[in-house]
C-alpha cells in the first residue's frame, strides 16, 4: 500500500480533527484492542489535538501535534498503528513471525507466503481472516511490517501455500520514510 508513497506527491491536505471525531476514533480503537487501554493515554493523550492527513487512494494518516504519524487507515478500514509506533508499543497487534529467509522479501514489499510462517523459523498467533497483524522476524527484536491476514491461522497451516498475509506497511516504505508531517 505504501510502496509508492511519497510525502510530496501523495499528501493532499491536512487538517485538525474535530474532538467529537477524535473521541469516536479512540473509542473504536479501544473496542478493538481493549488490552492497550492502560497505555493508550500515553500513546494518544486524551486532550491532544491530532491532525488528519489526507492522502491519495483514500489513505488517511493521523498525526500527533508534534507531527509524529501515529495511525493510518484506508477508506473506512480499521485504524492501524504505524511501525514507528509499534516499535515503541509492540503489544498492540497480534504477532506473526516469519523465518529468516523471508525478511528480505518482506523488506522489498512482498506479501508473506504461508510457508514463511509455518516453517521452523516462523511462529503464529491464532487469528481469524482479515485481522491486522504485526510481522516480526526470526532472531530480530523489532517488527518489520504490518499486514492483513488473507486466511485464518488454521487455513495457513492447512493449505501452506500462497499468500498468507497481505503486506500493508513495511520498513523503509513510503510511510516509513515520511518521518513527520508539518
Amino acid at each position: 500500500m505504501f510502496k509508492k508513497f511519497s510525502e510530496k506527491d501523495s499528501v493532499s491536505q491536512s487538517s485538525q480533527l474535530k474532538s467529537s471525531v477524535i473521541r469516536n476514533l479512540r473509542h473504536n480503537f479501544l473496542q478493538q484492542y481493549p488490552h492497550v487501554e492502560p497505555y493508550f493515554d500515553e500513546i494518544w493523550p486524551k486532550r491532544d489535538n491530532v491532525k488528519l492527513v489526507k492522502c491519495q487512494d483514500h489513505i488517511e494518516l493521523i498525526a500527533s501535534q508534534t507531527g509524529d504519524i501515529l495511525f493510518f487507515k484506508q477508506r473506512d478500514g480499521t485504524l492501524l498503528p504505524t511501525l514507528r509506533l509499534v516499535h515503541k508499543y509492540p503489544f498492540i497487534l497480534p504477532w506473526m513471525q516469519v523465518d529468516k529467509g523471508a525478511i528480505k522479501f518482506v523488506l522489498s514489499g512482498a506479501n508473506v507466503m504461508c510457508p514463511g510462517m509455518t516453517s521452523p523459523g516462523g511462529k503464529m498467533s491464532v487469528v481469524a481472516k482479515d485481522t491486522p497483524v504485526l510481522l516480526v522476524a526470526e532472531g530480530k527484536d523489532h517488527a518489520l511490517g504490518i499486514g492483513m491476514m488473507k486466511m485464518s491461522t488454521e487455513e495457513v497451516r492447512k493449505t501452506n501455500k500462497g499468500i498468507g498475509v497481505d503486506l500493508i506497511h513495511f520498513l523503509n516504505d513510503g510511510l516509513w520514510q515520511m518521518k513527520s508531517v508539518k
Partner: protein
Amino acid sequence: MAAVADANTEVNSRDFPNPILPRTDITYPINVLYCGVCSLPTEYCDYSPEPEKCKEWLRQSLPDQFKAVSAGGADDAAAASAKDGEEGDQDGGDDDRKKKQTRGGKARVKLPAAEEKKKPGAIKLSIASRGKKKYVTVVTGLGSHGIDLKVAAKFFGQKFACGSSLTGDDEIVIQGDVKDDLLDLIPEKWPDVDEDQIEDLGEQKR
C-alpha cells in the same frame, strides 16, 4: 532491546498468545535505536543497500552498541550465509551469485539520505516589472538549502508587509521590490546560507 522477542519464549505452546500483553518488566515506550544511515532499526542494517556504511555509522556514533551487535551478529551472519548457500543454486559460489539475480530482487530501497545529499545551489534573486512602476521579486533556489518554502514565503510576506506566494517548484514571488533587503535578510534568517551563494540577477522578464 532483546527483551521484546523474549516475551513469547516463555509460552509453552508454539503459538504467540493473542492478544500479546504488555510485559510488566519493561517500561514502555521501548526506545528503539534507528540507524542514522538507512533509518531502519540497527538490527536490520544487514538488509540495507549499504550495510558497510551503516556499520561505519554505528561504530562512530555508538561504539558500545557496535560492539554488542558485532559480537552477536557474527553468529547471525554465519547462520545466514549458511542458509543462503542451501537456498541458492547447488554450486552457489560467490561469483555465481553476483552474475545471477537471486529470487525476490535485492530488497534494496533507495536511501532516504541520498536525496538530501544534493548540493545546495545558488539562491537567485531577480525582479520583474509589473506595469510601469511596480515590481515583484522572484526568489529561486531556497529549497535546495533545506528551507521550508511555505514557511519562508509566509515569513517574507510578514516581514515586508506584502503578498508573497509559492509559485512553482522552488520559486517564491514577493510583491514589491525587496531584493536589496533580501540580500541581508536571508543570511540573517538562515545562518546556514552563505552570503556568497546569493546571486543578484537584476531585472529579468517573466
